[in-house]
């Protein structure tokens, strides 16, 4: 089929060829020049004032913003050179476009910050202007590039070890970038860095590397997974005993584990659950009530392993109860029913204080003073030193949560790739046809609720100990909406998507104060915008993408080819 397509596609391509011969080399020169200027700007001084954005005043000793400019510059040079000899699976033009807009945004943001903090553009030194010129040149180069057709069949096959080393290098870069980013305290620098990271990422992914990396990932699933967990495992060792970032990291992991559970319900089974936080709450309350806390309302103090299992069990029973209406209702109505259950859970936890009904939860005060976990003498509250690097309380929980999320991912992916997963897809596609083909629709829907709920319940039992207290106001509707947003933003039905979504939603507000005040506002807006322009999320599952764009023929074709390639 490819040979046919090529002959058919020849005629329109020839016009592109002419355009390329006229503009291609010019664009390449512009891009390389722009990139070089950005690199140069990194070596120059950006500001007279040495208190702004770190210290940018010294020449030939790049720091902060200057390094970022150099990184963008290098990417620009590479993409520019690629324009001259374009492999058929790459379109450097697309990358340059993202890089162009992004770098202009970055330099302008940096200049505005300098002007704002130091008092006027007069404080900008030659480096800033050189950088702006470089960014504009890259943007100009991008606008000269005609769009190319990507030929996804021509991805080069490398030897196994080469592909694996690419993965390792990429993940190492990821680890380094994350650690570096998290250690920046200056809000303006952090903002600029985020722009740079996003720019470079979009530029590289957009130009076709993304597809190729995905292809390599498909070929080496196991090494990729192992390496990813290794990187995640090594993360605490980059923090030098500081618990500030580890606290955020543990929150992200709990949030992500719960969101992954929700993704089973929403992404795989296609059922909208607006009360999902109640399952996390169930686990947390089970954990708290059976803990050693003096305020625990139940006298029984079983070992934590038993508590975890009980948390899963109780949550999955609630899941079954909440899932039962799926027998009769679906769609919007089901969503509202789950919302109702979620609110009832919160209100019940709030009310069961002994005055209104039995005393289970201490009402609005919740259950405080939950002690840290101890496993076989390993105290999660204490600092342990490994290889000379101190690992604090949150690092301990981080390792435990890493195990949890590995388990959740395992459950998610294996269920997805099984008879049950196929049943879920069939239900999403056409419920009546699925039933007429012998798929146990109701049973599978219940299963989704039960499995998802038990995973959230498991996460909850750990969360109770990590937070040291459990109160009803942690489990409001907004938190459910937040979880849903992580799933929607990241991508329904994918693991990577939810991890990305959860990280963005939890990390941003923690790192930038401005964002923190406005996080809900931004979050609401984000949901609306995502549904309007990219309902399938940042990292979509191919099938979900097709479901949201029923009439997009190009996408169908692309999905088809990629599906074939992956086999």
């Amino acid at each position, binding site marked *: 089929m490819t040979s046919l397509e090529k002959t058919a596609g020849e005629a329109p391509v020839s016009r592109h060829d002419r355009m390329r011969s006229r503009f291609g080399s010019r664009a390449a020169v512009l891009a390389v020049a722009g990139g070089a200027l950005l690199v140069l700007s990194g070596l120059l001084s950006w500001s007279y004032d040495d208190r702004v954005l770190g210290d940018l005043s010294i020449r030939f000793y790049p720091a902060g913003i200057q390094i970022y400019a150099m990184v963008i510059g290098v990417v620009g040079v590479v993409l520019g050179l690629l324009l001259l000899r374009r492999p058929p699976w790459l379109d450097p033009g697309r990358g340059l476009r993202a890089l162009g807009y992004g770098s202009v945004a970055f330099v302008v943001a940096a200049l505005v910050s300098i002007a704002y903090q130091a008092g006027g553009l007069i404080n900008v030194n030659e480096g800033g202007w050189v950088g702006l010129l470089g960014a504009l040149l890259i943007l100009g180069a991008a606008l000269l590039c005609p769009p190319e057709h990507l030929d996804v069949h021509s991805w080069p096959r490398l030897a196994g070890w080469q592909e694996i080393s690419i993965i390792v290098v990429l993940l190492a870069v990821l680890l380094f970038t994350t650690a570096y980013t998290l250690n920046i305290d200056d809000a303006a620098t952090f903002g600029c860095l985020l722009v740079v990271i996003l720019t470079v990422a979009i530029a590289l992914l957009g130009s076709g590397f993304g597809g190729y990396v995905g292809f390599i990932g498909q070929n080496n699933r196991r090494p990729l997974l192992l390496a990813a967990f290794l990187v995640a495992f090594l993360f605490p060792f980059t923090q030098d005993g500081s618990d500030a970032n580890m606290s955020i990291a543990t929150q992200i992991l709990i949030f992500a584990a719960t969101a992954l559970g929700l993704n089973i319900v929403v992404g795989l089974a296609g059922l909208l659950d607006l009360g999902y936080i109640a399952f996390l709450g169930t686990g947390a309350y089970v954990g708290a009530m059976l803990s050693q806390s003096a305020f625990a309302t139940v006298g029984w103090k079983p070992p934590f392993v038993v508590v975890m299992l009980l948390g899963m069990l109780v949550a999955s029973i609630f899941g079954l109860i909440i899932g039962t209406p799926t027998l009769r209702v679906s769609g919007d109505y089901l969503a509202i029913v789950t919302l109702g259950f979620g609110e009832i859970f919160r209100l019940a936890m709030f009310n069961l204080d002994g005055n209104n009904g039995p005393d289970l939860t201490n009402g609005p005060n919740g259950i405080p003073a939950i002690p840290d976990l101890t496993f076989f003498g390993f105290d999660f509250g204490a600092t342990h030193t490994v290889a000379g690097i101190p690992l604090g309380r949150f690092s301990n929980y981080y390792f435990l949560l890493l195990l949890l999320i590995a388990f959740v991912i*395992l*459950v998610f992916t*294996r*269920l997805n790739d*099984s*008879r*049950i*997963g*196929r*049943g879920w*897809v*069939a239900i999403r*596609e*056409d419920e*009546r*046809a*699925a*039933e*007429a*083909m*012998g*798929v*146990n*629709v109701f049973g599978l829907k219940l*299963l989704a609720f039960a*499995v998802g709920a038990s995973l959230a319940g498991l996460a909850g039992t750990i969360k109770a100990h990590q937070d040291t207290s459990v109160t009803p106001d942690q489990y409001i509707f907004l938190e459910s909406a937040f979880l849903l947003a992580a799933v929607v933003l990241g991508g329904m039905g994918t693991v990577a998507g939810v991890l990305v979504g959860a990280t963005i939603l939890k990390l941003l507000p923690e790192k930038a104060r401005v964002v923190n005040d406005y996080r809900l506002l931004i979050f609401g807006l984000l949901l609306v915008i995502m549904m309007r322009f990219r309902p399938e999320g940042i990292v979509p599952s191919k*099938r979900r993408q*097709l*479901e949201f764009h029923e009439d997009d023929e190009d996408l*169908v074709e692309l*999905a*088809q080819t990629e*599906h*074939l390639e992956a*086999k």
Partner: protein
Amino acid sequence: MTVTEPAAPAAEAARRVVLEAAGVTMRFGGLTAVDDVSMQVREGEIVGLIGPNGAGKTTFFNCLTGMYIPTEGRVTLGGETLPPKPLKVVRAGMARTFQNIRLFANMTSLENVMVGRYCRTSSMALTSILRGPKFRREEAATRERAQELLDYVGLADSAEILARNLPYGDQRRLEIARALATDPQILLLDEPTAGMNPKETEETMHLIFKIRDSGMAVVVIEHDMRFIFNLCDRVLCLVRGTVLIEGSPGEVQSDHRVIEAYIGGDDDEEEDA
């Protein structure tokens, strides 16, 4: 009996009755859509169901597949009364296709057929997560059987193509493959050649013969008279909810009442289901 293809008509009585409808009556409020219809379908037999618009074909069909529970009379599959749930009907050995194709559009052909195997496999959540040898064996067997069925209906090379990207005729055949994957005793086809060109119709006919010859019972609803009369061993003509005539294609074809029913009796009552 004038049968276009040899259908082993020798010992009809010896063959087992798979599906039996006895005195099926279906009323919606005051309207009697199906009135005292009886029908027997035996192993290795193709029975056609024809009738003008509004004759109650689809309602009767829905009674057969367990979507409706008849007001009077009963439907039995292999001697057992049909359970009232579609799910259990499939398990009992009845599979169907849809008048307007209802494939899982964003799944590949192979996956579509694998979904059909759902009710004949048993791995549940825990086995799927643990991935023991039983799970692997069952997955492999499911995949293999699905591929076999694709070969059987002539879609061997389309296994990895998304159902939505298949040509129309192939989609119809994929629906049949998916239905066969449920290991039915009887296959109900709702207008299997609607919208097909003559060549595709011809191919479908041969496919149905092949299925019949494997010993399965087949019931076909169709508007295309030529197709029905060439295909079926027996034809049932419904008019206004009652059986007008039942017999070999030759008998039905030459009966003047059938022609009248089609030409003159174009009722204005519309049937929807």
